[in-house]
């Protein structure tokens, strides 16, 4: 039966369209209290006094909890995937506006909300730092001491240092950059910046904790339930099996719902008051939870006359905000590929994850890669212009190919870089004449391509249960948040066990029954969990055959499973349990930041854009957006294409309109009225091309794809704008005003002169 490789509708679409799909927001438990959060109004300060008296007296308020109350329950109430730096509720200091300081609990959420408005706090304000480069100076310290978490294999080397805002610095040295720059015919340097953005999942953060007698159950919209269980157990000093984490469907995550968000808070509250507690944030509150890193990227390249890049140095500062969250991984992991998908012998990378007094930054659809691609593909385009080469030809000349060492030293394998690039060039009709517009409206086109290494080493475990009637249930810790993972795994199980995918039941994360998974993140799941599922299915198939032999059936029998069970157990009884654990090999970077095996697979994605610029207003219309990605062998092409188009739309917002504005640490546009995600009418025609290749070690030749569609969008648009009107935008987002200002500056009459 051929299950894998066909367009297959997602298993849960009917439930979602009819409103029957299970989400944490729907959950109400008997005796449940609602928590509403009182948040810091200062960016950096010492807490002098929290006045909760009036709130406590409000009729209907059950209790008001502060950080000091939590400390009585959990003496060290700090959590985090990289550092244990984030208090469950602020203790002694607040480090960003919006940091949770107290919680009001009531049976009615509106009463709790009213209670919050009656709380006041006094702070001794401290000087604050907001900029990632300024934070290098240690005169304002966000944290006095840091405790590395030691949880994840790739972050074992984090150090406890004081006197700095650097959470992690990653350095890569390959070849002799200075020597090569000295020999280059052209040395070209630029600095690019990106802005702070938000995930804007349709389902805001929500968690419920239920303190049972012998175990605590957490229902939560979270992408990494196994991590939640480990971290909550650690905080309470319990064994893992005292914590149960259940994740139903998740209404979008994009990296925001990774690690701990509200889980530690609801768990602590529930244990304090011995009643179920639910906290559901509003859209506005999300601006104070987790964001996408603003960055400053200084990039310098040495290029020969004939267009070979011989050296590149990259210095990236990541604005991680007040708590590290997974920022250190962003800085390190993306550091491996900061020099781009090019074959460059001499590379240096210096990547710094910085603490500042902003909302924390973490993973957002690609762990930092789009920020890097924005810089290096804009830079690449500018080099081509400067040396007078066509940007396509210039890239062709320098593209990294399989069998060659990538900057990290790992030999490139199964990365369809030239193929993806070729697909883009072809779709864009690069060699055909192009209508450049006339008069006020000018047209241009741009292209960009990028490479990503997946996070490694990480583990996935899958369990398959074949019941005595032959029906199959799959248990995985992957979280389906709309990306179609349930369906993809069902296709794999169907393929291996010879049943239609729609007959496979997929059990969602429930740590009481589903096995460990590192997390649904970074395009890792389909590769890691997909492999685990395939191996578990093969294990089950083997065990079923053994059962047939035990039952005395001849080798190679094609008895249906129910007959095998009946024969073996005398009735419809028993189970076959197949299981597998998948962990790829990995070598950690050495002192030079180099490794022979930095990733089990590479992701390749690129974009092409055609734009029309109104030279009088600066308004940019994207006429066409082409997205291409290496997807190995697609398991479900229909879903793969929507992953590419969804990613492109998301990155389009980050490119043209989205930005969090800050005033004294306060987000001044913390609402969807003023924070501009693209609406349907703002989305241009998007063409997606799945470049089919073979990932030799992927499940049925496939690889992860959830992020590749974001890679090239921003620089492709900036390059197209440059092509159209000859101005270069160095900072995101590319608003109409930014373009107009650049046009006017180029004409030598800056806008302010009017």
């Amino acid at each position: 039966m051929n299950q894998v490789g066909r367009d297959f509708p997602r298993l849960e679409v009917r439930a979602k369209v009819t409103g029957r799909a299970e989400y944490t927001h729907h959950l109400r438990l008997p005796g449940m209290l609602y928590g509403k959060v009182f948040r810091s109004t200062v960016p950096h300060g010492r807490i002098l006094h929290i006045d909760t008296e009036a709130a406590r007296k409000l009729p209907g308020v059950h209790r008001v909890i502060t950080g000091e109350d939590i400390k009585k329950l959990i003496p060290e109430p700090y959590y985090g995937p990289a550092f244990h730096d984030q208090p469950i509720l602020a203790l002694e200091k607040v480090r960003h506006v919006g940091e949770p300081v107290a919680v009001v609990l009531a049976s009615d959420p509106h009463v709790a909300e009213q209670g919050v408005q009656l709380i006041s706090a006094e702070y001794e304000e401290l000087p604050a730092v907001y900029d990632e480069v300024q934070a290098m100076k240690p005169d304002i310290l966000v944290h006095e001491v840091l405790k590395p978490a030691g949880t994840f294999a790739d972050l074992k080397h984090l150090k406890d240092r004081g006197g700095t805002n650097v959470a992690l610095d990653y350095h890569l040295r390959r070849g002799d950059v200075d020597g090569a720059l000295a020999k280059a015919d052209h040395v070209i340097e630029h600095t690019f910046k990106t802005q702070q953005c938000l995930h804007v999942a349709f389902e805001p953060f929500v968690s419920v904790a239920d303190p049972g007698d012998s175990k605590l159950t957490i229902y939560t919209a979270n992408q990494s339930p196994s991590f939640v269980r480990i971290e909550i157990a650690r905080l309470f000093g319990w064994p893992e099996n005292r914590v149960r984490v259940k994740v139903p469907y998740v209404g979008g995550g994009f990296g925001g719902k990774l690690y701990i968000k509200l889980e530690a808070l609801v768990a602590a509250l529930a244990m304090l008051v011995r009643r179920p507690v639910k906290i559901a944030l509003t859209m506005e509150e999300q601006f104070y939870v987790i964001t996408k890193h603003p960055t400053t990227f200084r990039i310098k390249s040495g290029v020969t006359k004939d267009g070979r890049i011989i050296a590149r140095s990259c210095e990236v500062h990541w604005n991680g905000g007040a708590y590290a969250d997974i920022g250190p991984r962003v800085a390190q992991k993306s550091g491996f590929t900061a020099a781009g998908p090019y074959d460059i012998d001499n590379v240096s990378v210096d990547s710094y994850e910085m603490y500042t007094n902003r909302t924390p930054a973490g993973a957002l659809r690609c762990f930092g890669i789009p920020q890097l691609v924005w810089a290096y593909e804009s830079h690449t385009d500018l080099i081509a212009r400067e040396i007078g080469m066509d940007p396509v030809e210039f890239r062709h000349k320098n593209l990294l190919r399989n069998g060659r060492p990538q900057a990290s030293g790992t030999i490139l394998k199964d990365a369809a870089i030239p193929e993806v690039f070729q697909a883009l060039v072809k779709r864009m009709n690069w060699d055909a004449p192009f209508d450049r517009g006339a008069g006020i409206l000018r047209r241009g086109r741009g292209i960009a391509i990028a490479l990503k290494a997946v996070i490694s080493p990480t583990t996935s475990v899958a369990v398959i249960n074949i019941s005595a009637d032959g029906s199959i249930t799959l248990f995985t810790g992957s979280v389906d948040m709309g990306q179609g993972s349930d369906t993809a795994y069902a296709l794999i199980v169907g393929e291996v066990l010879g049943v239609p995918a729609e007959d496979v039941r997929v059990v969602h994360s429930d740590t009481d029954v589903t096995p460990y998974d590192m997390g649904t993140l970074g395009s890792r799941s389909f590769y890691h969990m997909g492999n685990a599922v395939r191996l578990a299915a093969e294990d089950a198939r083997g065990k079923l055959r053994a059962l047939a032999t035990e039952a005395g059936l001849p080798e190679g029998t094609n008895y249906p499973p129910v007959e095998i069970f009946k024969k073996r157990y005398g009735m419809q009884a028993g189970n076959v349990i197949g299981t597998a654990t998948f962990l790829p090999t990995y070598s950690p970077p050495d002192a030079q930041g180099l490794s022979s095996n930095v990733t089990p697979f590479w992701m390749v994605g690129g974009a092409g854009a055609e734009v029309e610029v109104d030279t009088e207003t600066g308004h940019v219309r994207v006429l066409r957006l082409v997205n291409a990605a290496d997807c190995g062998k697609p398991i479900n092409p229909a879903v793969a294409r929507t992953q590419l188009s969804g990613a492109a739309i998301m990155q389009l917002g980050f490119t043209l309109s989205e930005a969090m504005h800050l005033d004294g640490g306060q987000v001044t546009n913390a609402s969807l009225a003023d924070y501009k995600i693209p609406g349907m009418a703002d989305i241009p025609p998007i063409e997606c091309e799945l470049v089919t290749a073979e990932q030799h070690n992927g499940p049925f030749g496939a690889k992860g794809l959830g992020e590749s569609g974001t890679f090239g969008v921003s620089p492709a648009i900036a390059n197209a704008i440059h092509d159209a009107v000859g101005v270069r935008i160095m900072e995101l987002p590319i608003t109409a005003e930014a373009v107009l200002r650049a046009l006017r500056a180029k004409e030598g009459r800056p806008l302010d002169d009017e």
Partner: protein
Amino acid sequence: MKPPVFDYIAATSTDMAVAALAAAGGEAKIIAGGQSLMPMLSFRLLRPSLLVDINRIPGLAYIEEADTCLRIGALTRHFQIETSPVIARHLPVLSAAMTHVAHLAIRNRGTIGGSLSHGDPAAELPMIAVLLDATLHIESVSGQRAVRAQDFFLDALTVDLDSAEVLAEIILPKLPPNTGWGFEEIARRHGDFAIAAVAATLTVSDGSIRQARIALTGVGPTPVRAAAAETLLIGHALENKLVESVARAVRAAIAPEDDLHASADYRRHLAGVLTDRALHAAWRRAQGEP
């Protein structure tokens, strides 16, 4: 957040509505489409003790053609105005403006009376009311009065309406023959409030402009009529030099401010560019071109 507690009356006549407003002594608010009011209640920017719902008052939503004007009931929804053949025939600049007001779902609920009474500094309807010299009919327990749109908009979100008054009807004079129109807007996204927008009409005979009107929104606390700029056009044919000086006069007539979405400089610049475009469009249409 949810609105604070309030009482609610569904009025079935304008008399009932104004009586309820008067009885509440300044603490009541009218609710029409709710598209601006509900967010303000939910953010607790307003805390009225009473909401007077006017949606069930019969005969408050209409578009009527008279000899020299169109009469529009305050409860007429944006979508009815956008799709009305009568308006398309007599006031096509209004039809065009409506497509820039928010999104269809909002236009299905939002009303012309609500938009004018709300007085958002970047809204389209107040600007069109000012452009077309609308007269607003207002009722209260003490009687009726009429206000010119020019005098109605006092400041951002502040209009010449007492808390006990209801805006009942909007009267829009028909455009004279040989009048062309232009409407130009720049917004951050489709359906967003304008960063800047310009609407213009030109009435032309024998190759020269007899009457000119230019109105702007998004470039100050209230919609603006650029009277000095209009005068420059009278008696002339439209040509580029003239447009340049008119655009300059428009830029001089406004006092935009910086906000999250655009700087004052950019808004002022746009005012000039959009004036240029709106005037050229109006001129073309006055010659009978589409």
